[in-house]
C-alpha cells in the first residue's frame, strides 16, 4: 500500500505538470449538425438504400416473428429474448399489447419484422467466435420487413440496425422508411477492454456495458480481470487467490456464478468474453493467496520482503499454472485466452541469487528477456496449448523474440511506432489486433472521438495484401487507474462508438461531418435507452438522461 501511495504521488506530480501544457485544445473545424441521409445509423452498414416511403409502426399491431423457413424457431431462446429487447427499445418500454390481427392495418403500416435464419445450423446455442458469420440482410417494405442472416449473430446485428431505423415523426408516431441493407463487419475482432483489478466493477456495470457494446456492434469483451492491485476472480481450484488478493473477499469478487452470468449475457448479445490472466508481471495480487508463486526480491544478500514477477525457476510455478489454466479453460468457453506478458520489470529477478544461478545454468548470460521467454515459450504456452485454447499476448512477448505458435494473436498497444510494429508482426505472419490509438482512459476536453475515428488500421508501412489480412481488428481499452462504476459509462460512451464504426464500417466511411450527425443522434438514442453516454457538444436530446 505504501509503495502504491508513493507511486500515486509521482503520478499526481506528473499529472499536474502535463496538465499545464494541455490547455491548447486541437483546433478542429466546427462540426455542425446536418441531418445525415443515413439518419442515426451507427455504425454505418456496408450497403444502405433508404427510400422516402415511410411506414408506421404501432405497438399494438407490430411484432417480430420467426420466418417460416427460418433455421431457428421459437426454441431459440437467444432470438426470442432479442425480439423482446428490441421491441422494448423500439416502443420505449411500452407494454406489448395483444396483437390484434383484425384491426385494420393501413396501407402504410409495417406489421411485422420476420427474422429468417438461412443456414440450417443457426448456432443459436453456441458461442460466437472470431470466425462467426455476422452478416445480415434487411429489407423493410410494406407490409412486412424481412431480416435474413445465415446465423443468429447476424440476426442480432440486424435487429439493432432495424431498431436504429425507427424514428418518431412530428406527431410521435413510430415510423420507418422503406429500406434495403446488406451488411457485414470489416473486421471480425471488435473489442472493449475493461479492467476490474485497479477498481472493482460491480457485475451490473459490466452487464450494462455489454448491452451498450451490442448497440455498437462490438463483439469482444476483453476482461482484464486481475492485475497487481487486486485479484477479484474467485477460483474454485485456488480460492485463496481472491480470498487474500481481492479488495474484499466477498463484496469485491466475481464468483463462478457471476462469471457465468457475464458470459451468458454476452453470448445472448453475440459477444465473446476473452479473459486475460496477465503473467509473469502485473501479478502482485496473485502472491497474496499463493505462496512461492512470486519471485522474492533481495536487497543485498537478504530478501527484502517485497516480491516481483512470477518466479520462473520453480517447478511449483508450472504445477500451479497448469491447474489454474485448466480451470480457466473450462470456465471461459472462448477459444482464446489472453496471456498478457506486458511490462515485466527485471529488477527483482536481477536481485535474486537463485534466479542468477538459474540464468547461469541455462546460459542466458545477463539477458533477462531470455528468462521471460523461457517462462512464456518453454512453459506457459505449452500449458495453455494443452487446454486446446489459442492465445493472445501483448506485443512485448513478440518484441522480445519469444517463439510463438503460428496462430498466436499479437495485441499491439504501445502508442509510438504502432504502425511499424504492425508491419513487423504481420510480416512475421502473426495475426494482430490494434489498441495503440484507442486508449480511452486518456481523456481531454473537446471532441477527442474524432481522433479515434480518424484512425485507419490498415494504413501501416509497406503492408502487403497478405499482411493486411492478418489485422483482424482492434480494441478500445479502458484501464482502471481513474475509472470505476462512478464514471466508466460516460467516459466510455460515445467515445468508444467512434472505434466501433471504424472497425465495422467500410474503409471509405470517413466523412467526419456525416459521422458527427449520426453519432449525435446515436448518443441521444443511448441516453433514451437509459445509458449515461456523455455529450459531444453543446446540444440537447429530446429525452435527457434521467437516471440520477
Amino acid at each position: 500500500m505504501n509503495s502504491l501511495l508513493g507511486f500515486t504521488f509521482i503520478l499526481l506530480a506528473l499529472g499536474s505538470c502535463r496538465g499545464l501544457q494541455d490547455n491548447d485544445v486541437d483546433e478542429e473545424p466546427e462540426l455542425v449538425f446536418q441531418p445525415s441521409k443515413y439518419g442515426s445509423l451507427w455504425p454505418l452498414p456496408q450497403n444502405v438504400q433508404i427510400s422516402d416511403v415511410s411506414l408506421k409502426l404501432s405497438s399494438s399491431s407490430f411484432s417480430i416473428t420467426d420466418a417460416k423457413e427460418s433455421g431457428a424457431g421459437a426454441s431459440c431462446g437467444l432470438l426470442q429474448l432479442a425480439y423482446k429487447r428490441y421491441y422494448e427499445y423500439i416502443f420505449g418500454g411500452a407494454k406489448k399489447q395483444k396483437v390484434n390481427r383484425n384491426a385494420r392495418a393501413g396501407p402504410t403500416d409495417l406489421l411485422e419484422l420476420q427474422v429468417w435464419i438461412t443456414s440450417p445450423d443457426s448456432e443459436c446455442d453456441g458461442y460466437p467466435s472470431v470466425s462467426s458469420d455476422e452478416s445480415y440482410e434487411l429489407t423493410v417494405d410494406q407490409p412486412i420487413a424481412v431480416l435474413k442472416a445465415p446465423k443468429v449473430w447476424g440476426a442480432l446485428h440486424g435487429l439493432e440496425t432495424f431498431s436504429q431505423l425507427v424514428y418518431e415523426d412530428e406527431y410521435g408516431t413510430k415510423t420507418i422508411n422503406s429500406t434495403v441493407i446488406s451488411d457485414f463487419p470489416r473486421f471480425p475482432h471488435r473489442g472493449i477492454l475493461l479492467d476490474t483489478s485497479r477498481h472493482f466493477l460491480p457485475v451490473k456495470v459490466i452487464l450494462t456495458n455489454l448491452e451498450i457494446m451490442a448497440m455498437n456492434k462490438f463483439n469482444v469483451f476483453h476482461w482484464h480481470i486481475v492485475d497487481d492491485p487486486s485479484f477479484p476472480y474467485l477460483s474454485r481450484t485456488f480460492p485463496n487467490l481472491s480470498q487474500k488478493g481481492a479488495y474484499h473477499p466477498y463484496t469485491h469478487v466475481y464468483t463462478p456464478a457471476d462469471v457465468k452470468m457475464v458470459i451468458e449475457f454476452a453470448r445472448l448479445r453475440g459477444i465473446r468474453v476473452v479473459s486475460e490472466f496477465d503473467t509473469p508481471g502485473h501479478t502482485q495480487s496473485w502472491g497474496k493467496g499463493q505462496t512461492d508463486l512470486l519471485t522474492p526480491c533481495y536487497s543485498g544478500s537478504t530478501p527484502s520482503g517485497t516480491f516481483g514477477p512470477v518466479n520462473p525457476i520453480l517447478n511449483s510455478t508450472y504445477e500451479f499454472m497448469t491447474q489454474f489454466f485448466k480451470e480457466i479453460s473450462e470456465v471461459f468457453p472462448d477459444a482464446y485466452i489472453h496471456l498478457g506478458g506486458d511490462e515485466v520489470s527485471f529488477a527483482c529477478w536481477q536481485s535474486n541469487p537463485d534466479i542468477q544461478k538459474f540464468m547461469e545454468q541455462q546460459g542466458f548470460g545477463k539477458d533477462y528477456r531470455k528468462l521471460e521467454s523461457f517462462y512464456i515459450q518453454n512453459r506457459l504456452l505449452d500449458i495453455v496449448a494443452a487446454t486446446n485454447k489459442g492465445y493472445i499476448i501483448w506485443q512485448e512477448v513478440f518484441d522480445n523474440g519469444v517463439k510463438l505458435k503460428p496462430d498466436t494473436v499479437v495485441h499491439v498497444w504501445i502508442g509510438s511506432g504502432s504502425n511499424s510494429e504492425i508491419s513487423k508482426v504481420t510480416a512475421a505472419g502473426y495475426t494482430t489486433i490494434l489498441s495503440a490509438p484507442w486508449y480511452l482512459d486518456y481523456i481531454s476536453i473537446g471532441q477527442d472521438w474524432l481522433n479515434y475515428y480518424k484512425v485507419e488500421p490498415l494504413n501501416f508501412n509497406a503492408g502487403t495484401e497478405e499482411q493486411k489480412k492478418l489485422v483482424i481488428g482492434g480494441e478500445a481499452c479502458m484501464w482502471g487507474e481513474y475509472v470505476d462504476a462512478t464514471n466508466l459509462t460516460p467516459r466510455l460512451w460515445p467515445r468508444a462508438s467512434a472505434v466501433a464504426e471504424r472497425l465495422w464500417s467500410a474503409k471509405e466511411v470517413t466523412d467526419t461531418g456525416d459521422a458527427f450527425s449520426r453519432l449525435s443522434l446515436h448518443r441521444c438514442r443511448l441516453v433514451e435507452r437509459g445509458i449515461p453516454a456523455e455529450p459531444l457538444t453543446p446540444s440537447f436530446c429530446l429525452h435527457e438522461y434521467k437516471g440520477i
Partner: protein
Amino acid sequence: MKVMCSVNPGHCTLIKYIFLLLIIIHLGLNTAESVWPLPQIVIPSPERYQLKPQSFSFGYRRNLDTKHSCSVLDAAFKRYFSILFPGYTYGNDTLQLSENEVFTLTISLDHHDCQGYPNQDSSERYKLSVFAGQASLNAETVWGSLRASTGLETFSQLVYQDDFGSYYVNKTEIEDYPQFNYRGILLDTSRHYLPVQAILKTLDAMAYSKFNVFHWHLVDDPSFPYQSQKFPDLSNKGAFHPVTHIYTQSDVRRVISYARMRGIRVLPEFDSPGHTKSWGKGQSELLTSCYRGGTPSGTFGPVNPTLPSTYQFMASLLKEVASVFPDPYIHLGGDEVDFSCWRSNPYIRAFMRKMGFGLDFSKLEAFYIEKIVNITSVLRKTSIVWQDVFDYHERRKFLSVVEVWKQGCYLCEVRRVVKAGLRVILASPWYLDQPGPTHNWARYYNVWPLAFKGTEKQKSLVIGGEVCLWGEYVDATNLSPRLWPRASAAAERLWSNERQTSCVERAFPRLQEFRCKLLRRGIQAEPLYVGHCKHEYQSG
C-alpha cells in the same frame, strides 16, 4: 482478518500487530482528521463512545426562550439521521436500553431565527463538543440555525463504523469557521439542460463539502431554459424545448428552498450583453442586427445597447429576477463581448459618434453595463460581474464584486481588483470542465488565493472562490463524477486554514476516505486513483 487469525494461530502475533496498526490508521482516519474540509481547531481523543440508532437523538437546548423547534433544523435532523445510520429502519427493536447508552446531540443557538435565507454575511461559526453520552453543537449567530447544518455535517463525518458494524464517535472538541465566506459552485444549464434532479443532487453533495453558494449560470447563447413570468417567449422560443427543457417558476422555487435547507445561497446569473443569442429568439429587437456590406446579414450580435426598449426590457426582467431569487446578489455576467457585430451596424456607429466614444467599443459596453448595474441597485441588489467589466471600465466606483476567471496570472488580477477597493471572487484556478487525470484534485488543492502582495484590508476583500463546471461537454450523464471529488479539493482550500492543509500527501488519504463517504451517501464521485471503497457505487 480476525476470523483468519483465530483459525491460523501460527501467524497470529504478526497479523495481530499489523491488525493493530491498521486499527490505528483506520481510527486515525475515522476521527477528527477525516473531517473534510478540515476544521480550524480540533482536539481529538482516543476515547470513543458507541452510538446506537435506537437510542440516538437530536435535541434543542432546553432553556431557550423561544419555542423549541425550527423547521430547517428538523429537516436537517431527519437527513443526518439517515446519513449517520445508513440503511437503518425503525423496526422491532425490543432492545432494553440502559440509560448510559442514550446519546443526544443537543443544538443551542444564541439567536433563534429560522426564517429568511442565508446570505453573504451570515456567520457559519460553530462549536462542537462530543463527550460521554452527548454532543453539543453551538452555532452563535443570527443565522446560526440556518447554518447549523455545517456543524451537523461535521458531526456526521466524525461517526464511523467498526468492522462489526457498530457505530462510534470519539471524544472531540471542534471550533470551526470558514476561511472564506463565499464558497461557490457554478453550474451551466444553458449549454446543456440539467434536469432539476441533477441540480438537487449537486446541492446535496455541496452541503457535504460545506459549499454555500450555488451560482446558477441559467442562460447563455445555446438556450434560455428559465421560464419568465413576464416574458414567457424567452423560454418558449429560446429553450432547447419549450416544455421539457425549461425551469418553471416552481422548479426554481424548489431549487431555492432545497438549497436554503442546506445553508446554500442561490446566485442567479443573467449574463449580458454578450452570451445572449438564445434571448433574441423570444425577444425581438433585443439583439444587435449584424450587417454585411450595407444590409443586415440576418445574424445577431450582443444586446443592442443603443435602444431605450433594451433598458425597459432589462429593468422588467431583472425586477422579476430580483423578486424570484431572494439572494441579495445578482450576477450580471458581462464577459466576452464580441465587438464585430456592433462595429458592422451603422446605427450603433452613429450612436458611438453621438456619445463621443470614438471607435472604442469597450466604452459602449461600459455604458451598457453601468446602466444595468444601476437598474440592479435600484432593485436593492448587489451586482457581481465577470472580470472583463473591471478590465475595460475606467470608472469602477459603481462596481461591487468582481469574479476573476481568466487563466494566466490570476493573482495579478485579484491584486488589481482589491487595490481598486472592490471585492473579489476567484474562479480562474477552479475550471473543472477540464477533465482529470491531467487536471486532478491536487491541482485544485494547490491554490493560494491570498498569495499576493497586499494589505490585510485588501486581502479581506477576497471574499472567496468558485468552482466552475461549464457545460460544453457536461450534462446529467457525466456531471457528478466530473465534479466530485475534485470540487471537494477546492472546498477545503476555501474553508480550512491554509497552513494546516498545505500538503497534498497528507490530504490524499483523507480525500480518499471522504470520497468513499460520498459514495456511501449516493454521490457518484469518481476515484482519485487505484483502490476501493467498502461500499462501492451501485449504479442506478
